[in-house]
């Protein structure tokens, strides 16, 4: 009979690999995926802002009216707000000890992030489709 004498973990628990929080490395991994995606997206956005900085509304509409720019901006907004929400969750869970307050803040941050992300993406789409 072969049993693992060094671990108290059950065979099923080991196979699932989720740990006590029941979600494994999902949160950690998504934070990394979004971080890697944000490296080039952020550099593109900074370059765009520098290019638009001297000009008015017309330049903004022309720039984000182009499909590739609209796509990159929507990707940036979706990924950045997702990353922000993941990071804020870690921050809140580490520093807010009151259980009810922690849950309330987490909900507030998540609703605000996804609300702002949607508003910003709809705004870019409005410009992109020339409405």
């Amino acid at each position: 009979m072969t049993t693992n004498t060094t671990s108290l973990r059950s065979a099923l628990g080991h196979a699932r690999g989720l740990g006590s929080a029941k979600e494994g490395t999902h949160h950690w991994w998504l934070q990394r995926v979004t971080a890697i995606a944000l490296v080039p997206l952020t550099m593109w956005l900074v370059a765009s802002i520098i290019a638009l900085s001297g000009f008015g509304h017309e330049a903004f509409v022309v720039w984000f009216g182009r499909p590739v720019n609209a796509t990159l901006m929507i990707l940036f907004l979706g990924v950045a707000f997702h990353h922000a929400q993941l990071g804020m969750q870690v921050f809140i869970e580490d520093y807010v000890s009151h259980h009810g307050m922690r849950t309330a803040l987490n909900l507030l941050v998540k609703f605000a992030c996804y609300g702002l992300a949607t508003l910003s993406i709809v705004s870019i789409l409005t410009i992109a489709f020339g409405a």
Partner: protein
Amino acid sequence: MATQNRPLSPHLQVYRLPLTALLSITHRMTGVGLTFGTLLLAWWVTAAAYGQAEYAQVQAFLGSWIGLILLLGFSFALFFHLCNGIRHLFWDFGSYFELHETRRADIFVLIGAAALTAATWVMVL
């Protein structure tokens, strides 16, 4: 008494944080700051969709001295979080954990963030 000789964890009021630790907490603080900064980004993009007058309002605010200070902080926080975030990704691969390596990376992160911020403002102004 033996209980008095127990080791203490670094206490923030008496323990001088090493540079790596200072950068670590700065990474978190800039992350929180950038999350609030997204309000500015969302305002800018949404105003553009509403029209010329609304967009001009945002530009007027960002061009004021309080707007410029916010943007200066925003840009440095962004570049710091970007540079230190790349260092974190190297850490995730298990590299650069030695003391002399973290010290060198601290300097790279600080110089990188400052240089990118300066370069951006030179191009904008």
